[in-house]
């Protein structure tokens, strides 16, 4: 029976931990509810007035003509660029600026609300993906041979050779990490503030053209040709999780902003939804006539699917019941393929990149109406942008802290707990902490087995664990390390040693013979009869 004190301590600790978690959650909830009265804007909606009306029947031109006010009418537009290849689009974090890149090398960045062009360049190289960095002053482009970083004036700033033949780029804003994956199937993480390559992971699953980040925990999700989706962090050489998603290649992956739901599209025509916080359980599977070329979640959980020459938006796709019909759909005739769908943050707008240029659609209820000025401010002035940049850099999270559970920092866990790597609900999958690359973990959780201020106490618990790994020194101060090494080397046999031993044997035999008076010549040999006898 375990001694009483230990269990009491354990139970108390567990109780403390639960209490702390509950209090924190409760406090956060209370704060949220208290502060809600200060939120000024309301979310958008599209609701049918009577039973026979269907939301997916509403066209953009109808919306623009009848229902929307003048500010939103201006947000429905098309940029007709049919010769320069299918386009890829990206919005900045505050939803203010739009970056478009055509497959034939056309690159343009502009403030889409004001219609103000920042830069327009012809790169004369295929552009596979474009990605804004931390604000509208820098962006990254995945070109044919490697990734490049450009200024907002279109000036090339960096050529990043380590990102070879990238297909997809993504930027982790809180860690300042640019991640890319491409033809060689290597996932490269680079810190864009220092330029250091944080990790290069060989996925060994071939070319990868589907990649996205999980905004909640900064884990990269890659979709591969064998139908698996792998989850990566810069701290582990092996994928943290592998999910077998499709019967065929995975064409696109998306994760919702709260990190609960992953949507994957495959060549098998399925769009599947997975619950990331509940053992990667599959939620629903929807059928799409053409494989989904791109998927994207909006801030309020709407899922946009790019398939064929259509862009379709689904509402509550991951809800308790499977949704029978989409929320909205948009068809662009002749614009096969639709390559990219991206929601503009804090706006009810969906940007669609397709073969004939780009389209901007209004999707009521997509964006978060109330932004937080200290996170991303669509109305930031130049001064505010600069201050925000400095603050972002000061608050930059170290890449070592990227883990499946981002809330491990400061939590009460015991020393041997690998909660950071463990996937909730599944059997532990991942490399053990001591097998990872040695980098000092700055955010180690408080050790519950030892005491926080253990200065007065004599022995520390940590030393016992260390000794188990090394061989125990039982010599009580008498044996030296040289003696130990030599003792161990005695039984090691290699060619050189063998030669030396053979020579020693021969010399001993020779000495023996000489002592006994037998010379080498007197030893009888079968060939003696052929020797000329010397007199």
């Amino acid at each position: 029976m375990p001694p009483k004190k230990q269990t009491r301590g354990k139970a108390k600790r567990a109780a403390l931990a639960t209490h702390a978690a509950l209090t924190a959650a409760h406090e956060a909830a209370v704060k949220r509810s208290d502060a809600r009265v200060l939120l000024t804007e309301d979310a958008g909606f599209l609701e049918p007035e009577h039973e026979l009306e269907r939301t997916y029947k509403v066209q953009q031109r109808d919306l623009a003509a009848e229902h929307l006010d003048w500010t939103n009418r201006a947000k429905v537009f098309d940029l007709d660029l049919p010769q320069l290849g299918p386009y890829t689009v990206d919005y900045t974090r505050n939803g203010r600026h739009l970056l478009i890149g055509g497959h034939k090398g056309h690159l343009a960045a502009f403030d889409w609300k004001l219609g103000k062009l920042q830069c327009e360049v012809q790169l004369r190289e295929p552009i596979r993906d474009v990605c804004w960095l931390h604000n509208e002053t820098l962006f990254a482009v995945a070109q044919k041979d490697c990734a490049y970083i450009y200024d907002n004036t279109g000036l090339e700033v960096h050529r990043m050779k380590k990102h070879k033949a990238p297909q997809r780029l993504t930027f982790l804003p809180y860690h300042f990490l640019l991640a890319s994956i491409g033809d060689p199937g290597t996932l490269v993480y680079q810190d864009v503030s220092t330029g250091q390559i944080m990790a290069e992971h060989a996925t060994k699953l071939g070319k990868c053209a589907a990649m996205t980040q999980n905004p909640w925990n900064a884990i990269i999700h890659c979709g591969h040709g064998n139908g698996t989706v792998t989850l990566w962090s810069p701290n582990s050489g092996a994928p943290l999780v592998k999910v077998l998603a499709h019967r065929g290649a995975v064409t696109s992956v998306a994760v919702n902003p709260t990190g609960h739901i992953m949507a994957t599209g495959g060549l098998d025509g399925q769009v599947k939804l997975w619950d990331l916080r509940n053992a990667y359980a599959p939620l629903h599977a929807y059928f799409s006539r053409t494989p989904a070329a791109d998927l994207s979640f909006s801030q309020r959980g709407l899922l946009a699917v790019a398939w064929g020459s259509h862009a379709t938006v689904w509402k509550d796709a991951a809800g308790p019941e499977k949704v029978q019909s989409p929320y909205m759909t948009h068809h662009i005739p002749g614009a096969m393929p639709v390559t990219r769908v991206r929601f503009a943050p804090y706006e009810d707008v969906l940007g669609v990149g397709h073969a004939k240029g780009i389209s901007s659609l209004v999707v009521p209820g997509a964006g978060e109406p109330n932004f937080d000025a200290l996170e991303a401010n669509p109305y930031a002035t130049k001064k505010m942008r600069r201050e925000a940049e400095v603050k972002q850099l000061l608050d930059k999270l170290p890449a070592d802290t990227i883990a499946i559970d981002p809330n491990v920092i400061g939590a009460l866990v015991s020393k041997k707990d690998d909660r950071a790597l463990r996937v909730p609900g599944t059997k532990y999958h991942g490399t053990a902490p001591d097998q990872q690359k040695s980098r000092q973990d700055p955010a180690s959780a408080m050790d519950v087995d030892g005491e926080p201020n253990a200065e007065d106490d004599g022995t520390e618990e940590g030393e016992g664990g260390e000794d188990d790994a090394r061989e125990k020194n039982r010599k009580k101060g008498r044996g030296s390390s040289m003696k130990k090494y030599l003792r161990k080397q005695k039984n090691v046999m290699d060619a050189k040693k063998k030669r030396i031993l053979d020579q020693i044997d021969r010399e001993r035999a020779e000495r023996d013979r000489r002592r006994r008076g037998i010379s080498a010549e007197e030893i009888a040999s079968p060939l003696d009869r052929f020797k000329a006898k010397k007199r």
Partner: protein
Amino acid sequence: MKVKAITRTEAAFTRETVGDLYKQQRNLDPALHPFEKGREYVRAVSAAKVERMLAKPFVDALSGHVDGVYAMAKHPTVLDRLYSGSADGEVRIWSLAQRKTTLAIPHAHRGIVKGIAAVPSSNSFLSCGTDRVVKLWSTDTDEDAHPDPAVPVSTFIGRNAFNALDHHRRQNMFATAGVAVELWDHDRSNPVQTYSWGTDTVSSIRFNHTETSVFASTSTDRAIILYDTRMSQPLKKLLLDLASNSVCWNPMEPYRFAVANEDHNAYYFDMRNLDRAVNIFKDHVSAVLDLDFSPTGKELVTGAYDKTLRIYDVQSGHSRDVYHTKRMQRLWAVRFSMDAKYVLSASDDGNIRLWKAEAAATTGVMNARQKASVEAAHAVVAKYKHLDGVRKIVKSRKVPKAIKNAAHLKRVMLDARKKKDNNVRKHAKNPDLVRPRVPEREKHIVGTQD
């Protein structure tokens, strides 16, 4: 079809005129603030580092005394004034704002000035020395009666050398420590009361400024004796393992006092229950010579023979900060300033040094934004100070090598003794008989007497 899309009016989010403030809209939804803990942790690390970078506690050295300064006193109500006495008999009054001497009396005593005390609510002060004399000085000059401040107003002659001196908070009464403790009145040339308990000399004496008739003394026979001016006999006697060098009362908790002991610790006692120390302040590696409480009653400063000054929080057992300089020799007197912002140290080398109580604090007035930023930094560091990364930065202090080695040696020796104790207890038939467990706070107390 009911349709509404997000529409924002520019005016609500931008300013109208240059003189206006920008409106910063906030949304506390956690979905918009990922990595809260991680970002807070990073901020805690940065804040801790910045605090260490800005930690420049040394303000100034008041030099003037030729010989080592052994006695120092602050005025309880005048913030600017400091009195000091040195080994060559010189007494000085300092202005801390201007950081220079306002009055220097070179031959105040013929021996070492052992004790000095301010007379509260007046401009006079007392000094005593090994020349068996207590002198009352006053900076209020009167053309007829007292024209020269360098001439004492009155002199009290005792039979033996005086070791320490302190003045009553309200009444015109002071107590001296020498062979015995004597209570004097300004108008009488002989002591009003003599208290004697024990055989050895009394090394220090201090009045309680809150419970004003109570005072305490420490003597070389390891005793700490509590007295009341209204009684003819001492109240209580407390015996510790080693002798105490100084005693000081907590101004905010009048029943509690701290003693600076020879065994490198400072002990904090409650006079109502002397069987157990309330707290023990460890960290010095040599005898603690003097200590003083902050007027807030939450912190105390100690000066030790190991040439360092340590500031403790009353609730914790280890120092919050340590100050040292190559030029500063043994510390014989330390005082906390009455605005709780500065700490004064008087040492062997003849200098009185002025230090900031909070090493990284800015002197002077902070505007509201600065204050908020400093408070935010403190709050975030406090939230994560138990984590390795932050703790190492917060605790890191450069300490002279001699002290680091001495502390290491002390630790090794104490750990060895503790380990042996544990082993003996583990293998003994009757462990409580062989090695009874005594709490650390009771271990060093020999006994009490009434």
